[in-house]
């Protein structure tokens, strides 16, 4: 497990030295500035505009990093053959995979936290006052990070058995469908055959429910988040990631490197 930590720190270092990451941070700052300007022209709804725009930007940037870098975590190493020298050392393949996952999730934590702080400062600047409910912004950012961890796990799984392009498409596909899991679950029975109903219900429980992580409206109106939801989302992410990563490990452990 210690070796997974060494791999994770190196993955984090790679991301920090990657100029794309700095560009995305710069983009985040631009988005924050835009939200402040938008807030100034939207009389009375500054908070809603800033929080919605800010959280959307954090989510979008995080998703781009999670999908593109997540898919490249293993595939890039295989293409460039950088992992040959590493896997010939006393490193188990699961340690390598967990390390890569941990490194990107750590990067996302730092990135998301920095952007979350930027959003909070923008909010303070616009409101000039502070109330307890404003802290919901941080919970919303935390939920975005949980969601991104799940996306990274999925990207890693797909990249273990398919090409990078297909892995990006699969990850994006699962993410988009995952946003509508609730709708799948509540699909009216009259419009489908019983078999199809059972299938969509089964699918809705199999797919990750990304809608659970969206508390943008609560954050925009400074409503407090129930502690139960925080625990529930944390556990959901941990268990789902564990299952997906186990699948990725099973595939990668048997994979012949080119």
């Amino acid at each position: 497990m210690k070796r997974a930590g060494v791999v994770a720190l190196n993955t984090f270092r790679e991301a920090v030295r990657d100029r794309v990451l700095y560009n995305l941070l710069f983009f985040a700052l631009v988005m924050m500035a835009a939200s402040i300007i938008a807030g100034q022209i939207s009389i009375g709804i500054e908070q809603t505009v800033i929080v919605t725009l800010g959280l959307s930007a954090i989510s979008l940037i995080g998703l781009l990093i999670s999908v593109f870098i997540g898919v490249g975590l293993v595939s890039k190493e295989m293409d460039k053959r950088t992992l040959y020298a590493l896997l010939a050392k006393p490193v188990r393949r699961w340690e390598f995979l967990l390390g890569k996952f941990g490194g990107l999730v750590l990067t996302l934590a730092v990135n998301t936290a920095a952007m979350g702080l930027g959003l909070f400062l923008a909010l303070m600047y616009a409101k000039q006052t502070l109330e307890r409910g404003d802290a919901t912004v941080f919970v919303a950012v935390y939920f975005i990070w949980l969601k991104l961890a799940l996306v990274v796990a999925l990207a890693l799984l797909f990249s273990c058995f398919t090409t990078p392009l297909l892995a990006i498409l699969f990850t994006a596909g699962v993410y988009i469908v995952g946003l509508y899991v609730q709708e799948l679950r509540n699909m009216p029975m009259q419009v489908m055959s019983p078999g199809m109903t059972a299938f969509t219900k089964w699918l809705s429980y199999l797919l990750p429910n990304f809608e659970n992580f969206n508390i943008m409206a609560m954050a925009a109106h400074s409503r407090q988040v129930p502690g139960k939801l925080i625990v529930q989302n944390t556990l959901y992410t941990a268990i789902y990631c564990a299952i997906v990563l186990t699948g990725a490990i099973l595939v990668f452990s048997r994979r012949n490197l080119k």
Partner: protein
Amino acid sequence: MHAPAIETENLTKEYPHGFLNLKKKTSLEGLNMQVDEGEIFGFIGPNGAGKTTAIKLLMRLIFPTAGSARILGKPISDIEMHRDVGYLPEQPFFYDYLTAEELLDYFARIHDLTASDRKERVQQMLKKVGLETAGKIQLRKYSKGMLQRVGMAQAILHDPKVVILDEPMSGLDPVGRREVRDIILALKREGKTVMFSTHILSDAEMLCDRVGVIVGGKLRGVGAPEQLVDVKTQSMEIFFELTGQSTAPLLAKATRTGDRYRLQVPEAELYGAIEQVRAAGARILSVTPVRATLEEFFMNLVGADGAQAAAVEVSGK
């Protein structure tokens, strides 16, 4: 009695290919070989012969279709085996955002070296491969030869008992090749076992206690280089100088470079040939025995394999 440093038994690797992966291509077929402790073993063969496949199987980068292998008595599936093995991949490429020092430190951490050991070993290795002044430069600025040296450094960083090098001289200039050869010889003096693949036969002849020749995925011969080739003198070479023309039939068989000629004749016909050369008015510069080289042995095998492959193709099998 010591177990061999490296031992393979019927090691086979097939790759599925074609429509629905229904066809199978055999990259390595029933490899049985042993590398003894403390020896330098050369794995020679043309491109695509199966050298890298065999090495990747030993390193568990790919998995065998059949057979088994052991390194230092441990099955290759045992992760602990990797503690005592150093490996240089073919055309190595490392994280280019790291400096050589950072890369070696990273690998040293993987090997559980302590902080003080890491610092010491990293500097030692950089010095050993002649990169002590380039340690703080990012690898993206390294030339191919420099990357090869970093590859050597990471392979021997943890003081392994067995070092496996895939084409270690590839991409190096003559100075670099000489340095790698010196490192390999130094490893042997330290009692390490070195196995390396190469298609540069002079390197193998110069360094190896034994070589294994692999062609078409099959091991075709193992032994000391001088045992593999026929050490018997097969023919003699007469090197002579001749100004002017001659109509002697024997001279038509000679290779000419300016006024100088090289003529190979069977040993039994040497004296008769010398007489004819002298009669033609030539000045004999030297007479030397011609020894078969590893290259000739190798080329014969490759040629035979090519002929066999062509025959199979013709017969449609």
